[in-house]
């Protein structure tokens, strides 16, 4: 099965400024790829290249087997897109906007209306008669998501899709992503919201110094050890205990201590024993799994270190 998105040795510069160099990426059917990187790393440029609004200087790009720069409108009809600007015309209502986008994608309005009825009737957008310019930023983002999933495209490009979404809207978005994945769609999601990357993505890559590097999921701490969490009280002395056993500085995060261990088989029983002896009530101890966010934070810190030549996040 050929990948839905394929990028080989891609380079792009604007005048003297090189943005991307020798980037490669493959995303298969049903896969969700998270794209992270500091501000100005080139995430939006990469998405624009894949959408065919920018032309690559070097390298080979393929989306759904076609060249995005060919300006083939039929290729765009199979894409769902959320960009920095929602792209709605403020004077028109949401429904009027959707009628235009449905017609542009070649989708009959009755089919588009059925999709909206099925998936958006419980939201405040449904049959909202206000002009789009009068609705909130979060609602406009929901409108953009509604447009992106219209017609269930085969590939999605999302640039900060979870910005301004409330809890319900975010859950709804996650359900739509799951439904689209079930249909075999591929996703490229760029976001600074690391919880969204954790929730949604199977793989993630970081753009830094013009290059794209694949990030391992839950790859551990910055010193290459394993990450563990212990649910306990927030008391400074527990941090000292953990540090004395494991040798790494723990961090307090959402009701749990997070720390790095080099030899978990030996260190975890030892740290639990020491904590219990010191009077700490432990509710849970577990390795931190299936999260990119910790890896991403570590990568940011590592690249921001003075000897790495990176800049502070």
């Amino acid at each position, binding site marked *: 099965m050929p990948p839905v998105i394929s990028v080989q040795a891609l380079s792009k510069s604007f005048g003297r400024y090189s943005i991307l160099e020798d980037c490669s990426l493959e995303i298969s059917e049903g896969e969700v790829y998270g794209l992270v990187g500091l501000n100005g790393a080139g995430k939006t440029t990469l998405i624009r290249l894949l959408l065919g609004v920018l032309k690559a200087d070097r390298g080979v790009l393929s989306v759904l087997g076609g060249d995005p720069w060919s300006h083939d409108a*039929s290729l*765009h009809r199979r894409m769902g897109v959320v960009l920095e600007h929602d792209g709605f015309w403020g004077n028109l209502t949401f429904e009027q906007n959707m009628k235009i986008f449905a017609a542009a994608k070649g989708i009959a309005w009755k089919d588009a209306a059925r999709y909206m009825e099925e998936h958006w009737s419980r939201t405040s957008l449904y049959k909202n008669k206000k002009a789009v310019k009068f609705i909130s930023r979060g609602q406009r983002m929901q409108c953009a998501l509604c447009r992106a999933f219209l017609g269930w495209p085969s590939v999605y490009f999302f640039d900060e899709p979870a910005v301004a979404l409330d809890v319900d809207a975010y859950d709804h978005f996650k359900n739509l992503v799951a439904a689209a994945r079930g249909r075999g769609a591929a996703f490229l999601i760029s976001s600074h919201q690391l919880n969204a990357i954790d929730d949604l993505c199977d793989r993630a890559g970081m753009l830094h110094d013009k290059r794209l590097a694949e990030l391992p999921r839950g790859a551990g701490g910055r010193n290459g050890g394993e990450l563990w969490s212990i649910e306990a009280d927030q008391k400074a002395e527990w941090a000292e205990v953990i540090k004395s056993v494991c040798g790494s500085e723990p961090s307090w995060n959402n009701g749990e201590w997070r720390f790095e261990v080099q030899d978990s088989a030996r260190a975890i029983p030892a740290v639990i024993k020491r904590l219990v002896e010191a009077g700490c009530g432990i509710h849970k101890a577990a390795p931190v799994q299936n999260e990119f966010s910790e890896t991403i934070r570590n990568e940011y810190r590592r690249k921001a270190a003075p000897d790495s030549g990176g800049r502070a996040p």
Partner: protein
Amino acid sequence: MSQIMLMFRKEWLNFVRGDRSVLVVYFIMVAGWGALLASMNTGGPTTAPLWVVFFSMIIAANFSSTVFVLERMSGSLEILLTSGLSRSAILYGKMLFIVLMTLLLGGACAVCALLLRPYVAALQRAPADLRDLWPYFALYAGATFMNAASSAYFSVWLPNPRLLHFINLLLLGFIMTGYMAVSFIHPISLYCIAGLLALLGVAFAFLAKREFESERIIKPVVL
């Protein structure tokens, strides 16, 4: 063609659902310019063609501000480019909207002029009937087409697209100055100048298509 009409429909909806005060301004403009047109001397080598071209420039510029400049500056053009519409359809649909709306308002001015004619004094040299206005219609249509096409081109080519009206004004100024200078030596039919403007419009439409297919179309705008 259906994609061009869809683009036209989008522009039309955006216009009619826009600020109502604009419609009042248009109404006043049609009445005022209709009165001006009714009292205009169109009989000999006059400034009338300049006025006609100026009307076209002002009306077309107003529409191209929203249709090309605001669309690019607001970022909605990028979404439009990935919506499934071809770039040609986007360009031609927008141009069609500007041309038809400018012709509609120009036509309304002409009708208003004809209605006001009996009431405007010193009309001895005003057009005898509608047929005398045809060269002016042709001139107006040619200038409108050129304005729409050059607006499409300059809205992408210029780093600051808000300057496009000055460029259009300069361009038309050069053309009309040339026309006046040549017609001073040897009379030229208004149909000729209308044809020249239409030809320039075709050239600009070609250039605009090239710009719309380049990556400059999403280049950041300098304000």
